[in-house]
C-alpha cells in the first residue's frame, strides 16, 4: 500500500526497503508440489534505496517476516523469519507472499508478490496472433500456437506440451 497523508503526528522511523525476489514467478496449474520456488529478501536494505544493492555488511541486521497465503504450500527450506526460503505449492491458485522487513531502529517496509498459476490456454486467432505464434487449428478451434518445432515438453513454455505427431507445442488435453 502507498499512503499519502498529511498530519500532525511525529514522523515514524525511516522506512526500510523491502525487496522480494521470487523464482520462478509462476507455476503450471496442477503443479502438485513439484516445482521448488525460492523466495528471497536478500536485496532488502535498511534504508530507502532507489537501486536495490547488496546489503551493507556493517549495517545492523534486518529482521524478516514472511506471510504466505493462497494456494496450499509447504516450506521446504528456511522458515518464515529467514532471509530466504523455498516453498512448494499445489498450483491450484496463486500463492501470495508478503515480506515485512524491519530495521534495528524500527523502520518497517512491506512488499507483496504473487506466484501465479499458468493456465495452458491458447489464445483464439480472432484478432490475429502475436509475433512468434501462428494461427493453427487445434482441437476443432483456430488458436495461436508457437512457431517452431519441438521434440519434448521441456522445449515448450506456457505449460504447453509437445505434440510429437505434429512437432508443435500445444495446450495439454483438457486444458
Amino acid at each position, binding site marked *: *500500500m*502507498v*499512503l*499519502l*497523508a*498529511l*498530519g*500532525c*503526528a*511525529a*514522523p*515514524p522511523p*525511516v*522506512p526500510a526497503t523491502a525487496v522480494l525476489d521470487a523464482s520462478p*514467478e*509462476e507455476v503450471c496449474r496442477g503443479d502438485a508440489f513439484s516445482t521448488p520456488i525460492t523466495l528471497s529478501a536478500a536485496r532488502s536494505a535498511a*534504508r*530507502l*534505496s*532507489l*537501486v536495490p*544493492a547488496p546489503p551493507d555488511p556493517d549495517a545492523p541486521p534486518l529482521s524478516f517476516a514472511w506471510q504466505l*497465503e*493462497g494456494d496450499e504450500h509447504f516450506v521446504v527450506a528456511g522458515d518464515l523469519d529467514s532471509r530466504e526460503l523455498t516453498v512448494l505449492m499445489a498450483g491450484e*491458485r*496463486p500463492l*501470495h507472499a508478503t515480506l515485512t522487513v524491519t530495521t534495528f531502529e524500527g523502520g518497517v517496509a512491506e512488499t*507483496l508478490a*504473487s*506466484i*501465479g*498459476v*499458468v*493456465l*495452458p*490456454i*491458447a489464445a483464439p486467432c480472432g484478432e490475429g496472433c502475436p509475433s512468434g*505464434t501462428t494461427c493453427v487449428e487445434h482441437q476443432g478451434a483456430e488458436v495461436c500456437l*508457437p512457431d517452431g518445432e519441438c521434440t519434448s515438453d521441456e522445449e*515448450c*513454455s*506456457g*505449460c*504447453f506440451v509437445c505434440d510429437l505427431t505434429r512437432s508443435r*507445442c500445444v*495446450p495439454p488435453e483438457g486444458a
Partner: protein
Amino acid sequence: MRRAAIAALAVFTLASYARADSGAYLGESARAVSLADAIVARPGDTSAIYFNPAGIADLERPTLSLYGHLGNRQVRFARSGELGASSRRVISGYGVSLVARLPGPEWLERVRIGGSVHLPGTNVIRVIAPVRSDVPIEPYYGGRTDRTAVTVALGVELPYGLRLGASLSVTANLVAPTSVGFDASRGEDVDDGVIIAQDRDLTLTPSFVLGARWQAIPELAFGLVWRQGGATRASGTFDIRAGSIEVLDEYRFYDLLAPEEVALGVCVTPIPALSLSLDLTWGRWSDYRTIHEELPDPLFSDVVDVRAGAEWRAHESLRVRLGYGFLPSPVPEQVASHNFVDSHRHELALGLGLDLEPLAEVPVTIDLALRFHAQHRQRATKDPARLGDATPDTLGQTIDNLGYPGFRSRGSVAQVALAVTVRLDGAPSAPSEDDVSEETSEEDAGETDEETSDEDASELPQVEGDAP
C-alpha cells in the same frame, strides 16, 4: 510496473507522515446519526448545513454545535476455501458548526448563514493508493470517511412554509511535484548521490448543495436536496534524472468522497410528541472511478438509499430517536480483476437529546447517538476470461489475482456520536408577532388557536426545545 515504481517513489517521499483513519461520511452530528440521516424534510439543526441547507432557516436563535464521533470498522475478507482474516480500523472526527440569523430589517432576518468545519481524527488528507489494482479495497468506507471540509451555507425563510438553502464546501487536494536527481560526487554509496526534491501544495475543490424544505401543513413537510459530491485528489509529477537516464512521469490518485446525490424526504407529525421521517436518496455511483481514475470493471450501479427516522418527545427536555436505513451496495459481483469489498447494509441507530433549558435554564442541548452498520455477506466468483494475463508476453494465461478463484467478505461499523449545542443568545426567544400572524395565515381558516400552538411546537427546531 510503471505504477509500482511511481507508487514506490511516493512511499519514499511521503511515507513519513502520520497514518490513521477518520471520518466524514460517518461524521454527522449526533441528531442526524440517531435518525439514520433521515432529516431532509425535518426542521433543521446545524447538521442541515451538510444534509439540506434549507433546514438552517428553521433555526431561530444563533446556534453553535460542537460534535465528535468515534467508531470501529471491521471487515472480514477470505478467498474461497481459505480462512481469511479480519481487519479493524478506527473512524473518528470532530467538527464545529455555527448558524445565525442575519441582522437588519425584517426581510433580512429571514436569512440565516451557517458555517461548519469537519476534521478527521488525524489526517488532513489521506489517500491510499495500492501498488496493485487487485488489492481488496473498500470503496464505500475507504477514503470517504476521511474528509476535511469547510462549508458555508445560506438558508432563506420564505412565505407559505418554504425554505431554500445552498451550501458550498471546499475539500483539500494534495499536489506534490517531485524531482529526483543523482550526483555521484555526493558520496561513495550510490544512494548518497540521490537527491529528492518535492514541493507540496494544498488546493481546494468546491462542491455545492442546493436544498428546499416545505412545511406544507403543520403535520406534513417535504424536503428535496441535490448534493454535488466530490473527491480528494493527490497528484504530481516525477522528474527523474540520473546521468543519461531521464524519466518524466506523473501520478494522479483519485479518492471518491461522495457521489452526486438527490434526496427526497417527507416528515409527518401524527401527534405533537412524535415525528416520523422517510428519505430516499439516489446516488450516482455509476460515475465511480478507481484510485487511478479509471472505470471499474464491472461498472458500479446507481443506488437508492432508504432511510427512516422517528423522534419522540418523551419529556419537554428529552427526545428519544430511532433510525433505520437500508443502503444497497453499488458494487456488483467482482468477476474481473478488481476486488472491491462491499455489500448491502442495514443501518440501525438510536439516540437521546437532552435539552437543559427547560430543566436548568441553560441554553444547551446534549445529543448522544449510537449507530451500527450490518452488512450482508458478499460473494464473488472470478471469471478467468476477464482476469487478463499477468505475463502477456508468455504463452498461456498467468493468473496471480488476489481474489482468485473468488472471495467472500462481511463487515460492520459500530459508532458513537456526541454533540453539544449551545444557543448563543442565552435565552429562549418568543416568536415575533409577525411570525405568528404569518404562520396563522398559512393554515386553513378553520384551524383553532390550539392547533396553531401545536404547529409552533412541531416546527420549532428540535435542538432548541419547545417554547415554554
